[in-house]
């Protein structure tokens, strides 16, 4: 029987980052991967956002050396109407703020997990962690009501002071230790097709961007790599599931604009994958005696856009640091491991989940709801016609007439949008920083003749009386 300070189950980004951190903190650590090499069993899109430059710059610097790497500087949204016509294509390129907030502006990266995972596992090995591949951890060892190690399918028993479970959405470790079974309604299924394509054409037509396809269907993402791309869609695995996974992708592939893109890029389906992706309002309990859950196993993926790799690496780092700190005192009881939850909740990972319910509700009633999308696209299109540039290019009538006609149409549609705004957009207002709330209020005051003469202090007090949820310091 072997004895380790830390056994990490799973050799994905979360597991590797946990193993790397534990090794750097001087712990004796092994990580187990069920594939023949890391990345062989991955579950991912996989785009890495700008925040990676802040939190893992040493990884971002090295990614261009991986064969599938594509720099990403914007996300382009393709809006399709109920007649399958592409109606709007708009991109997020970032403002001046984006350019100065991070040293790399809006730069992110796309890279296949089959390349990223071995790269990250190597970082852990270099730091001193031991890796075992083709090794499936199939059970936990329980001692005195707490996790004390794992067993593997090749007959080994690995005892550990702390187990870090980074074994994905289905987490055998979480289930066998009795923490949970199914996710219930908080998990999605994501079918995904990888396409090969002509690299130069991809450079010319799409460039350094990710794409999305939104319409009266289950919204789809298109992650672009050096010479290929992923098309993925998804939906929560609930009672109302109503479609074959592959049909979600076929529905997008039928769109003429998608077909023309495929023709131009000489795109051909190359690989089919399907993965579970937890998409939770807030993660359930993430620790038990002797064990912490990280990444997808914990339910950490972003409640707004489903990215999970950053969340896995951040939680892996926090879990390993917590293990190192607690092991120096020798207490890794359930009570003491509460510290892990306290730490991730007070990190940016926790902040992402503070509005988990609002984000999930918003997604559930838009991108994942084909009926609602019909209406929302209509509103968005009419709203875009009020944009100064759109007015210039509407030659249907004298321009001021055209503007008024669009305004009238938009106002007619607005009541249909009212419920959506009240139920799904307004709750996000609570996330506005108190200082920004105060500035909005004072701007409003400037525009209202009566209030303008009221002293600032009295005005803010009045505002708080009308809207008690206001957090602005008064």
């Amino acid at each position, binding site marked *: 029987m072997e004895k380790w300070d830390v056994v990490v189950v799973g050799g994905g980004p979360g597991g590797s980052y946990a193993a790397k951190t534990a090794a750097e903190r001087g712990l004796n650590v092994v990580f187990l991967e069920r594939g023949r090499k890391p990345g062989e069993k991955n579950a991912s899109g996989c785009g890495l956002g700008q925040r990676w430059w802040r939190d893992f710059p040493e990884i971002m610097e090295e990614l261009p050396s991986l064969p599938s790497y594509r720099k990403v500087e914007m996300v382009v949204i393709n809006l399709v109407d109920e007649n399958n016509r592409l109606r709007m294509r708009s991109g997020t390129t970032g403002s001046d703020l984006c350019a100065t907030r991070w040293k790399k502006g809006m730069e992110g990266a796309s890279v296949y997990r089959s390349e990223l995972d071995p790269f990250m596992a190597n970082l852990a090995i270099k730091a001193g962690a031991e890796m075992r591949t083709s090794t499936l951890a199939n059970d936990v060892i329980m001692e005195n009501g707490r996790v004390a190690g794992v067993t593997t399918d090749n007959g080994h028993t690995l005892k550990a002071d702390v187990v870090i479970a980074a074994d994905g959405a289905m987490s055998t470790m979480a289930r066998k230790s009795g923490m949970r079974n*199914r996710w219930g309604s908080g998990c999605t299924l994501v*079918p*995904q097709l990888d396409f090969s394509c002509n690299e130069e054409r991809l450079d010319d037509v799409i460039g350094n961007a990710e794409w999305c396809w939104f319409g009266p269907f289950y919204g789809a993402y298109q992650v672009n790599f050096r010479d290929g791309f992923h098309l993925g869609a998804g939906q929560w695995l609930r009672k109302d599931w109503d479609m074959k996974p*592959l049909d979600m992708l076929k529905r997008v592939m039928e769109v003429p604009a998608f077909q023309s893109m495929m023709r131009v890029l000489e795109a051909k389906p190359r*690989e089919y994958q399907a993965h*579970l992706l937890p998409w939770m309002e807030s993660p359930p309990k993430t620790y038990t005696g002797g064990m912490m859950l990280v990444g997808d196993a914990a339910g950490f993926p972003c409640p707004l856009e489903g990215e999970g790799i950053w969340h896995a690496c951040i939680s892996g780092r926090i879990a390993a640091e917590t293990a190192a700190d607690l092991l120096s005192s020798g207490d890794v009881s359930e009570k003491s491991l509460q510290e892990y939850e306290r730490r991730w909740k007070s990190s940016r990972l926790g902040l992402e989940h503070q509005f988990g319910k609002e984000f999930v509700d918003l997604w559930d009633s838009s991108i994942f709801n084909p009926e609602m999308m019909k209406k929302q696209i209509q509103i968005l299109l009419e709203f875009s016609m009020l944009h100064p540039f759109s007015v210039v290019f509407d030659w249907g009538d004298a321009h001021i007439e055209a503007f008024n006609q669009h305004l009238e149409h938009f106002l007619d549609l607005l009541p249909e949008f009212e419920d959506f705004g009240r139920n799904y957009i307004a709750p996000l207002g609570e996330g506005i920083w108190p200082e920004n709330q105060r500035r909005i209020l004072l701007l409003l005051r400037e525009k209202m003749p009566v209030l303008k003469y009221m002293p600032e202090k009295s005005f803010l007090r009045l505002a708080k009386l009308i809207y008690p949820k206001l957090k602005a310091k008064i």
Partner: protein
Amino acid sequence: MEEIKLDIKKLVSRVSSGETGDFISFDPQNCNGCGKCADVCSFGLWSVKDGKAKLSKRYKELCLECAACWEICAREAIDFSYPAGGTGVVIKYG
């Protein structure tokens, strides 16, 4: 509209050697024949016969290891583990 034809079984790679072992188990006693497992399976490995779900005998050579059948079964009639380490699906482009 042009119909999309795709044979996704040809778009999956697997380790050619090694035994996966049994990794899906099914308890007919808990099954109410709702058929959700059949709806979520990309390869149609589940069907419903006589009011009970039925798993294809060839699942070990066809399963994508997504575990959606386990997750959607509200009655917990399906248990899923993974194929033995070093066997099963290989993701090359993901």
